[in-house]
């Protein structure tokens, strides 16, 4: 059974004298909550399109008191009336006072190209100004998520303005938002903080993009609502809405990438049994397999990977609430590029000047995953309940995440197993109480209180690198939002605390004693373990406003927010050399909490043939934890003499930093045969102590996409082609002598796409072909770890076929 709600309601001046004569001076009611009508099954067979006009009576509070069918195909009458009665408005105004009026609402019905999931898709569009968040926020649609089928989360969100990717030396990537790398980004899946070993440069984000219905990227500090780490932004991933009608529905997707010969298959099915109409069950899974990727000149040896995901979800609902349980497993195995050599700094620097890695001729496009490699398994189980009444609403979630990461170095054949093994266990409870919407004559007040708690253990086994840890953390926050006809104002506050116990072996502890970073007087000795404790408390605030400067057309968002981050385990206690960098890294145990204070000004516009959002932002970060070369007491570079050579010492220091920038996207010709889409970003980051530029800040970039919309041809609908020219500048703002290699030169890439929907008798089929780096250009990305060793992958053709059933 198919459902659809192709468009949002439209509003227009009534064509006859439904309203009283004074309505000309009335500020019309503004839609506050949209409702999608259900496409009637009876219309499906004949593929009926049609517009329905409904007159709705809206009272002084913005509620719909009555809805009357005016005109349109009668087959849509009940669906339109049902939806109209559920709409919510900001009340109409006359002379500043809320008044009751009757207005007209139009619904456009079209046969469903997709299933229920598309209700979500059609509600949100990339680059459309978001009318909820007071920060810049972009939501990716199902189609945009499908374009990245078989790729990771970072690649999926990479097209959002202000978002970049840090690709690793394995088949992994990490998102960067406004110059903030993954440490300062929060990823939430279904409202749960994703907890993993995200500190390593080659530790990808273990999230399955295909299990998402929507992915929203909030750009800017959002610590109050989401908690610590949300300094650069937040990636919110919501699963597709569960089916609510009796029957079976689902999605299937197949994709193939030419670079790395990578097939991908995915499947999702929802079932609502006739005998238990309030119960929905879902099973889903996908698998991707990849051979070694290729640059324009050579194969990237040992970059093959294998990923699979499987999950299930069940929901039971009753009149005042829902109970939901889910489990999901993500499993990733990936080789680490052969070219990442453990070598002396001198050899490493000399290697940077080489055109190609020395053994590149030996590498072939094989699916074999060899040492060095990484293997990650992430399990997530959740239990959530939502309950509402006249007293408000409470949502509570418990989650258990079990993340196992194992890393295998190239070793002698007498060695077996991983050389580094991390087990992270996280229990979390999140509860949010939302009070009833308080309707007042001048607006509506919404808000609530939230509580978050987390218990976490990190157990490390292997060559000494980091200690074991047990921690408790908790947060308490409150938020209120006042919605006025022309503006929304949001305020919030939050306090957080973290208590952490660290367990050292005598050998690990002796390293810190030798460095003078820890002493026994600060810790306690229990058997053969030395236990040290640290605690952090912090607070954050937010004040934001969303002004409807020209209602329905231009919105202005102003946001002032703070966010915090507790120091990571590696920043405090790391001691050792990394396989990817010829440096000896040491943590600094007395680091304090990072705090950012920032603001953003975002302007969004929506017209018939133009829409866009541009956001300027600035922030000051207190105690910005920074990985930099260590200096001796007489201000000379510090070195560590190890059995693998003499390596420079790097450590973590807290500096104060500023970051500012601008990002946004503009679309012209939204419905014309030819359209243009522009997006870009620029970021600047400085150490305020000496004015030097921060490392790893993405360079300026701009993309221009020409979109051609082709009228339907036979069964082909929604046919469009796109050509994108993307220019990435050279990052010329880097601190001297702070990096091993100079920034790579600027580059321009050409991408192309062809997408359509094939209407068949039974189900529509979505097809797409996307070519990236069409000209097979050689280039290196500044934010990529791979740039030290090899070129970026070359041309890739990505073909996909998807159906909903």
């Amino acid at each position: 059974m198919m459902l659809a709600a192709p468009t949002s309601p439209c509003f227009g001046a009534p064509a006859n004298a439904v309203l009283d004569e004074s309505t000309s001076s009335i500020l019309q009611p503004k839609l506050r909550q949209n409702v999608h009508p259900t496409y009637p099954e009876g219309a499906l067979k004949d593929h009926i399109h049609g517009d329905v006009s409904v007159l709705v009576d809206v009272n002084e509070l913005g509620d719909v008191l009555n809805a009357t069918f005016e005109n349109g195909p009668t087959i849509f009458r009940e669906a339109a009336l049902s939806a109209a009665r559920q709409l919510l408005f900001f009340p109409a105004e006359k002379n500043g006072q809320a008044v009751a009026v009757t207005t007209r609402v139009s619904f456009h019905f079209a046969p469903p190209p997709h299933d229920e999931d598309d209700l979500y898709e059609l509600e949100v569009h990339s680059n459309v100004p978001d009318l909820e968040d007071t920060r810049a926020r972009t939501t990716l649609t199902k189609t945009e998520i499908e374009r990245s089928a078989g790729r990771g989360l970072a690649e999926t969100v990479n097209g959002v303005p202000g978002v970049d990717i840090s690709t690793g030396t394995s088949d992994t990537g990490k998102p960067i938002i406004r110059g903030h790398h993954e440490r300062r980004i929060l990823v939430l899946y279904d409202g749960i903080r994703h907890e993993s070993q995200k500190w390593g440069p080659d530790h990808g984000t273990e999230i399955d993009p295909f299990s998402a219905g929507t992915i929203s990227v909030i750009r800017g500090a959002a610590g109050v609502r989401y908690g610590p780490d949300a300094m650069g932004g937040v990636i919110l991933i919501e699963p597709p809405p569960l089916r609510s009608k009796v029957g079976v529905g689902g999605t299937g997707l197949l994709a193939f990438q030419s670079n790395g010969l990578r097939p991908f298959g995915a499947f999702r099915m929802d079932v609502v049994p006739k005998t238990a109409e309030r119960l929905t069950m879902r099973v889903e899974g996908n698998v991707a397999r990849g051979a070694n990727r290729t640059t324009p000149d050579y194969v990237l040896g040992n970059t093959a990977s294998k990923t699979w995901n499987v999950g299930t979800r069940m929901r039971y609902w009753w009149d005042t609430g829902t109970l939901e349980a889910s489990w999901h497993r993500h499993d990733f195995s990936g080789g680490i590029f052969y070219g990442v050599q453990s070598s002396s700094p001198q050899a490493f620097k000399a290697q940077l000047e080489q055109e190609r890695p020395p053994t590149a001729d030996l590498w072939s496009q094989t699916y074999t995953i060899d040492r060095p490699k990484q293997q990650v398994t992430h399990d997530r189980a959740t239990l959530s309940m939502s309950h509402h009444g006249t007293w408000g609403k409470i949502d509570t979630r418990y989650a258990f995440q079990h993340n196992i990461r194992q890393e295998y170095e190239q070793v002698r054949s007498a060695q077996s197993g991983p050389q580094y093994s991390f087990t992270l266990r996280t229990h979390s409870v999140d509860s949010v109480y939302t009070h009833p919407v308080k309707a007042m004559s001048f607006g509506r007040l919404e808000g609530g209180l939230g509580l978050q708690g987390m218990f976490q253990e990190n157990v490390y086994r292997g060559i000494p690198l980091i200690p074991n840890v047990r921690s408790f953390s908790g947060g308490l926050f409150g938020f209120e939002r006042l919605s006025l006809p022309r503006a929304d104002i949001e305020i919030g506050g939050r306090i957080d605390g973290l208590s952490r116990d660290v367990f050292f072996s005598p050998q690990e502890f002796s390293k810190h004693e030798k460095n003078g970073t820890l002493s026994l007087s600060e810790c306690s000795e229990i058997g053969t373990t030395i236990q040290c404790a640290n605690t952090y408390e912090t607070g954050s605030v937010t004040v934001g406003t969303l002004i409807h400067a020209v209602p329905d057309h231009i919105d202005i968002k102003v946001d002032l927010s703070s966010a915090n981050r507790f120091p990571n385990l590696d920043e405090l206690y790391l001691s050792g050399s990394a396989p990817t960098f010829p440096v000896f890294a040491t943590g600094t145990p007395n680091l304090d909490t990072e705090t950012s204070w920032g603001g953003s000004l975002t302007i969004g516009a929506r017209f018939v043939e133009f829409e866009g959002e541009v956001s300027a932002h600035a922030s000051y970060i207190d105690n910005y934890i920074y990985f930099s070369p260590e200096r001796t007491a007489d201000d000379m570079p510090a070195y560590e003499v190890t059995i693998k050579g003499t390596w420079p010492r790097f450590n973590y220091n807290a500096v104060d930093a500023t970051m500012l920038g601008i990002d946004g996207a503009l679309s012209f010709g939204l419905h014309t045969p030819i359209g243009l889409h522009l997006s870009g970003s620029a970021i600047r980051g400085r150490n305020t102590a000496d004015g030097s530029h921060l490392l790893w800040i993405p360079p300026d970039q701009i993309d221009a996409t020409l979109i051609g919309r082709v009228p339907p041809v036979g069964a082909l609908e929604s046919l469009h082609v796109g050509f994108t020219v993307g220019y990435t500048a050279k990052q010329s703002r880097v601190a001297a002598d702070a990096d091993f290699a100079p920034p790579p030169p600027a580059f321009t890439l050409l991408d192309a796409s062809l997408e359509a929907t094939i209407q068949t008798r039974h189900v529509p089929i979505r097809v797409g072909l996307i070519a990236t780096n069409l000209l097979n250009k050689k280039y290196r990305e500044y934010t990529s770890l791979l740039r030290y060793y090899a070129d970026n992958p070359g041309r890739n053709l990505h073909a996909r076929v998807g159906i909903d059933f």
Partner: protein
Amino acid sequence: MRHFIALTPLFLAMNGCSDVHDHDHDHDHNHGVPTTLDLTFTGDNLAEPLTFRWTDPENDGSPVIDTITLPDGGDAAEHMAQEYTLTVRIYADLEGESEELTGEIDDDASFHQMLFWGDAVSGPATGDNPDALISHAYSDEDAEGLPLGLTNTVQTLALGEGSLDVMLRHLPPENDVAVKTADLAETVANEGLEAIGGDVDIQVSFPIVIE
């Protein structure tokens, strides 16, 4: 918060037996991290072999490095070449008892090679060096007939002081193709270490005196 802390035993129970304070599992694995390198010189002029050691048993960046002192075949007034057999032994000390790794390297000889260079050395990995105090030549080979370097021949060339750098290069095959080549040392001499594949297992420098 009290309620939250009260949940701790529950969480611990769900985690199984918590192992966060237990480091003993480290001993379940033989990580085989080299920490000590011994160079032993034997020669017909020596009553006992001479062993010189580079060691950092805690692997914490505080090595103890011997100075290699070798008698020349002549005297203070006149140099005369003296030949020595140089054998290499490698140990792992991190995990309690010292464990010798030399056998593992010999077993994987096709994936390893010792390299010797420095301002005091003339040999395959350095090419001609007019200032060299010693010459180096490989005396052993792997199953493919390629040099290994656990046993070597060293001959004094001049009196003086300098440095001897020693590397154990790990050269596992890539895509099932051998990385180790017959001319590996010569490639280092001509193009530098960056021109060869593989990883560094050991790279140390000894002061050396020929007297």
